[in-house]
């Protein structure tokens, strides 16, 4: 860091000109500041990478200790999770997580894409400028609020509707999650659809398409990669969501055989049990392994997003 400054100083003394001297000093300062900020920015990103690596290593290290006492086969294929009797089958949680996420997407994707299309293509400008901030606001609502509403409003309603005694389960959780990820998906899809060049629409109309044909055959396909990104982002949020799910799913370690069976997913099981287990126990390791699975799933999904983006960067 010192060398460039002294170099500059000697250079300026050779030139001996007052204006160029101050100029060079200024250049030196700029260069110094640049260097400083470069190392600061580099440090920031490296610190983040370091923490991330630490998290992954720690969770993986603790998680894989599970397999000292539990076989791979039992952990991934057994549906029997009774840690107090040394049964550590996590298959029920994995399957439940997949079912819950699938059902959530099934409910929320059609609705949120409809919202996005309406917003971007059909709605008048004043309505659009009203609904976009509203959706942004919804994205920011803490999940515990959704969970509490689910518990106090949705569940009693479902109970009445189905005649179930409890009504907690996959269906209630999927409804709450759908509401949660709906704004995320529709806002991002909205942006993707708005980004479709105007000439596409004009060309389609010029060829005599109806509005529906323009939307379904031209705009949505053109924005499909952006919409895919939106869906995957919504999906990662749904998979990782914990508090809202815990409040409405019933937290019972068993396979969801019906939509209203009280059950448990990876996240809800971790949060329910982690504070009640001993540090150095297979149970604790198994919970860490489940956390690692969640991490792995999220990472795979994010890699898929990058892949889609890279392929279709020009379009979306």
């Amino acid at each position: 860091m010192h060398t460039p400054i002294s170099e500059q100083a000697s250079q300026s003394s050779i030139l001996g000109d007052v204006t160029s001297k101050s100029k060079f000093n200024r250049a030196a300062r700029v260069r110094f500041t640049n260097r400083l900020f470069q190392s600061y920015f580099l440090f920031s990103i490296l610190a983040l990478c370091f923490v991330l690596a630490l998290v992954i290593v720690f969770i993986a290290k603790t998680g894989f200790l599970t397999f000292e006492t539990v076989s791979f086969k039992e952990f991934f294929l057994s549906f029997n999770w009774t840690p107090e009797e040394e049964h550590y089958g996590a298959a029920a949680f994995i399957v439940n997580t997949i079912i819950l996420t699938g059902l959530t997407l099934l409910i929320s994707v059609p609705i949120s894409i409809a919202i996005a299309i309406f917003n971007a293509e059909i709605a008048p400008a004043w309505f659009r400028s009203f609904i976009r901030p509203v959706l942004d606001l919804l994205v920011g609502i803490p999940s515990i609020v959704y969970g509490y509403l689910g518990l106090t409003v949705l569940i009693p309603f479902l109970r009445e509707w189905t005649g179930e005694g409890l009504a907690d389960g996959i269906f209630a959780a999927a409804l709450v999650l759908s509401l949660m990820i709906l704004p995320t998906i529709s806002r991002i899809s909205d942006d993707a659809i708005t980004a479709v060049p105007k000439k596409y629409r004009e060309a389609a109309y010029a060829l005599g398409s109806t509005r529906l044909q323009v939307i379904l055959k031209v705009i949505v396909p053109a924005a499909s990669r952006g919409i895919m990104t939106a869906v995957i982002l919504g999906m990662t949020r749904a998979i990782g969501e914990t508090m809202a799910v815990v409040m409405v799913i019933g937290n019972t370690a068993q396979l969801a055989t019906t939509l209203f069976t009280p059950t448990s997913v990876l996240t809800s099981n971790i949060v329910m049990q982690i504070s009640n287990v001993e540090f150095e126990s297979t149970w604790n390791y198994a919970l860490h392994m489940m956390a690692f699975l969640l991490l792995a799933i999220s990472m795979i999904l994010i890699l898929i997003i990058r892949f889609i983006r890279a392929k279709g960067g020009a379009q979306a």
Partner: protein
Amino acid sequence: MNVFKKFTVLTLATMFVITSAFAGSAAAAGDTLKGKITINGSTALLPLTLQAAKEFQKLHPKVSFAASGKGSVTGPQAVKKGIADIGACDWDASTDVPGFKAFEGQVANKVAVIPFATVVNKNVGVDNLTTEQLKGIYSGKITNWKDVGGADEDIVVITRAFGSGTRVNYQAKALGGGDIVKKSKNYKEVGSSGDMKTAVATTPNSIGYIDLVYVSGDIKAVKFNGVEATAENVINGKYKIWSYGYYMTKGQPTGEVKAFIEYIQNKKFQTTTAKKMKFIPLSAMK
């Protein structure tokens, strides 16, 4: 300033009287006590701990506290690892309980009496349950309220997650060591006393169990073997579902930790602050 000084003198004086009356050794330590006491463990005992720490600090300003609450089992665990000086726990962790092995070398210091109650949703007509009936309900043999004298409605069982201190005590005292059996329907696990209250209050035909202090409004405590869940019945020995709250320490407590535990166990603290917070004074128990 003057008032404050007077107050300090007064509290110090009372402290001396108390300590000399109840613990000779602590009195000798007087206000020379200093250091940091770290307390981990049970959320049920946390309010009591915080209040006691606040009062204790007025007497010994050089002692500082770091208290946090999580599951009961984290208390003795933190003590074992040397993270905490005191591990608050809803059961005696120096002995084996269902699901948890004894923590070797730890001493259990009783600090409070925690009564528990069987609670039901307001819409349930039953107001008394026997040990046998509760066993039947929690093991899944009794699934309809009409079998225990109520309306023809399915029983919704709400229980705390395995490892909860409340669950450990309830299973031991109310179910006579009986099992809580997972069911595919009408069965829900919750993570805390607050969740239990919300769940029982909002679910018709539900049954659960909770610290007595939480019973109010929307949930109804039922009699256990004909005895009402009240502080009086715990004291006179008729009501059996209660337990001591413990401070676990590594070996016998010493120094400021000992002084603090003695402060909590002291009759004055027990009959004023602890009682105000709806714990039953230790001294009232026989």
